[in-house]
């Protein structure tokens, strides 16, 4: 099957295969990946991490767990499927169990009205416009109360994730557990009204946990810092056979004999894919490379589809710009593209923590990223990567790194070490064990 046009395929061309869409005009075999999600592999076990972090660090985890061995933990969030929190809990809970900390995970329930209110809260806490009505307060409190009645809190530690279940803290006086509020979102500029509503609840916890000092608020309780993390053994980050990487590149028409600059992110204006194209066109006057823009599915996101069209217009049929609209279950393909890349770019205009940056750094790739959100915690300019503030800065960094391979190699090495030290799932397990120890006075 040959792909010659720029049109976005609305339907899979053949049963069982999703047609990822390269946008360039150069003739290329149409890539195909599974139309349906593959079966999830079994989760890794603690011992599987030894090859990555070493025996001494695994032993340290076992020692830390010793003081809270047999203790019980309840994690509570608002969704069992989808999103980074559920993905993280899917890994964290079994690993704590292997360390003989009895962790469980429960999901709150609520009707559409509740989740509409909490979505409004979520956007408002990110700084969006929002008017907090009495009705919204009542809906939030009603569903909180229903969840309180339904759930028991007999554990030693209760960890509540994000604002949706924050009101469960009302159950604290009935139990002896230590309660932790784990906030995964950026609270640096919240809607004042919504924050005034939530703050008294938050300050009843024994401790809060934030993903970055920049995301935190001034609170009357201790605030721990847990950076978000990636799982080095997940489909998106595990080591891949060279033959598979080659197969994916061949499938997507990526020429590995030439440098490859890649940005992985959904087609969203805040990820500035058009800015990446502009930067690459500037840099391509001086150095030869291909740009790969691989993003999440735009099919079910009307705005994403619009941005994808803008991106394709900006690419202007340049054969060295490869645009791939991938379905959500493309973790292995994304992993392969990152590993095949010479440089990873994340030129976001706004960002949460930026886990795609973490993924690139973990793969030892020299990474160029905007100084927004949690990225500066990962990319320390000229030491673990290159921080940029403009299209021109991005273009220059691409030119510089492509023409200074030794420096690029050193950045990649440092970046990987930085992730190993701070942003891996095992580090996350260590932080939880430490927090439980500290809270219990062990």
């Amino acid at each position, binding site marked *: 099957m040959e792909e010659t046009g720029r049109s976005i395929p609305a339907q899979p061309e053949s049963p069982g295969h999703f047609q990822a869409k390269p946008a360039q005009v150069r003739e290329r075999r149409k890539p195909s990946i599974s139309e349906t999600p593959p079966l999830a592999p079994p989760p890794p076990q603690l011992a599987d991490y030894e090859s990555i972090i070493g025996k001494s660090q695994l032993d340290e985890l076992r020692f830390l767990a010793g003081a809270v061995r047999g203790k019980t933990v309840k994690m509570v969030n608002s969704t069992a499927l989808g999103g980074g929190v559920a993905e993280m809990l899917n890994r964290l809970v079994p690993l704590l169990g292997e360390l003989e900390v009895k962790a469980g995970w429960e999901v709150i329930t609520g009707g559409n009205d509740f989740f509409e209110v909490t979505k409004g809260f979520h956007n408002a806490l990110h700084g969006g416009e929002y008017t907090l009505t009495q009705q919204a307060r009542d809906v939030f409190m009603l569903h909180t109360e229903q969840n309180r009645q339904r759930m028991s809190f007999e554990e030693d530690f209760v960890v509540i994730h994000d604002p949706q279940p924050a009101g469960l803290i009302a159950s604290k006086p009935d139990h002896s557990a230590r309660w932790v509020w784990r906030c995964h979102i950026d609270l640096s500029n919240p809607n004042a009204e919504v924050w005034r509503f939530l703050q008294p609840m938050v300050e009843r916890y024994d401790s809060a946990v934030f993903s970055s000092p920049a995301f935190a608020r001034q609170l009357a309780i201790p605030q*721990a810092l847990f950076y978000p993390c990636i799982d080095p053994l997940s489909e998106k980050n595990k080591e891949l056979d060279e033959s598979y990487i080659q197969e994916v590149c061949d499938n997507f028409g990526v020429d590995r004999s030439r440098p490859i600059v890649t940005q992985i992110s959904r087609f969203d204006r805040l990820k500035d894919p058009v800015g990446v194209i502009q930067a690459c066109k500037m840099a391509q006057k001086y150095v030869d490379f291909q740009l790969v823009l691989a993003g999440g599915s735009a099919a079910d996101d009307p705005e994403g589809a619009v941005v994808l069209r803008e991106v394709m217009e900006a690419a202007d049929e340049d054969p060295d710009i490869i645009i791939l609209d991938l379905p959500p279950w493309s973790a292995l393909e994304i992993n392969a593209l990152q590993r095949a890349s010479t440089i990873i770019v994340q030129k976001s205009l706004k960002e949460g923590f930026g886990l795609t940056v973490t993924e690139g750094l973990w793969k030892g790739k020299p990474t160029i990223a905007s100084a927004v959100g949690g990225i500066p915690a990962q990319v320390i300019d000229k030491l673990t990567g290159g921080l940029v503030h403009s299209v021109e800065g991005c273009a220059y960094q691409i030119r510089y790194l492509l023409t200074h391979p030794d420096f690029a190699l050193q950045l990649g090495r440092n970046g990987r070490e930085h992730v190993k030290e701070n942003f891996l799932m095992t580090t996350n397990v260590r932080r939880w064990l430490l927090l439980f120890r500290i809270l219990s006075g062990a």
Partner: protein
Amino acid sequence: MKNAVSEANALGCASHDSRQNGQKMSDGLGDAMIPTTDLMTRSASTPFEFKAAAHLLFIEREQASNLPGLLDALRSCPEDSIFQHTFRTLEEHHFIKEGFSNDFAHWAYSDLSVVGLGERLASLDVREFTSLSSLRSRLIQIVEDFIDQNPKARENRAESPFYFCSSKAVVLPVQLRANNLADFIEGLKQVSVHSIHYHFIEARLRRKLETNDFSLWLQIELGLSRAASLLNHIDIYTSTLEGVRRKIVQILQNATA
């Protein structure tokens, strides 16, 4: 605690006899002239127990967006914050060997664009301090002096604020102990870099001495005063912690070569 000097002298006599028997001698890095094989296997009366520390970070109230703000925060922050942003910087960025001596220097240089202050703060060697209060005073003095000499720098606004954090530590036993130099070198090769940091860098604050756990043990238990002293001259700011580990091992292997 045994008397290292008298023990070394006693062993020195013994080594003289050994030399006459044609055995290879240590090169003097150990103060005693001891046959290499004896030096490697001679038992310490107190074994060296390797440990490490696991740190959990907490976000403190203090923030700074300019130099006056930094000065205020340096005066009011908990001592754990001073520790976190100086001693711990070396551990958190143990894989970097340039440009990262402490968080304050890095911020002054990269976020506040006050290169001169960045250089002065970067020149601080935490090993010169056996208390966090003296380290805090020195940091304050450097910033105050800089502002006095460069009053316009007060107005510089940072690209991003300095967020003060602190760390709480849990000391972890490592399942390794050394009864002699051979065990010790082997242990050094096996432990994590966090253990190297704990014994070699953090130890000053714990012991209130301008030395480290390794040097103390080598001197007191094995009489290796010269090697112990050489360890204290390793430049921890131009090397990764892995590099520091290699240099320690090299010094000890040379002592027995």
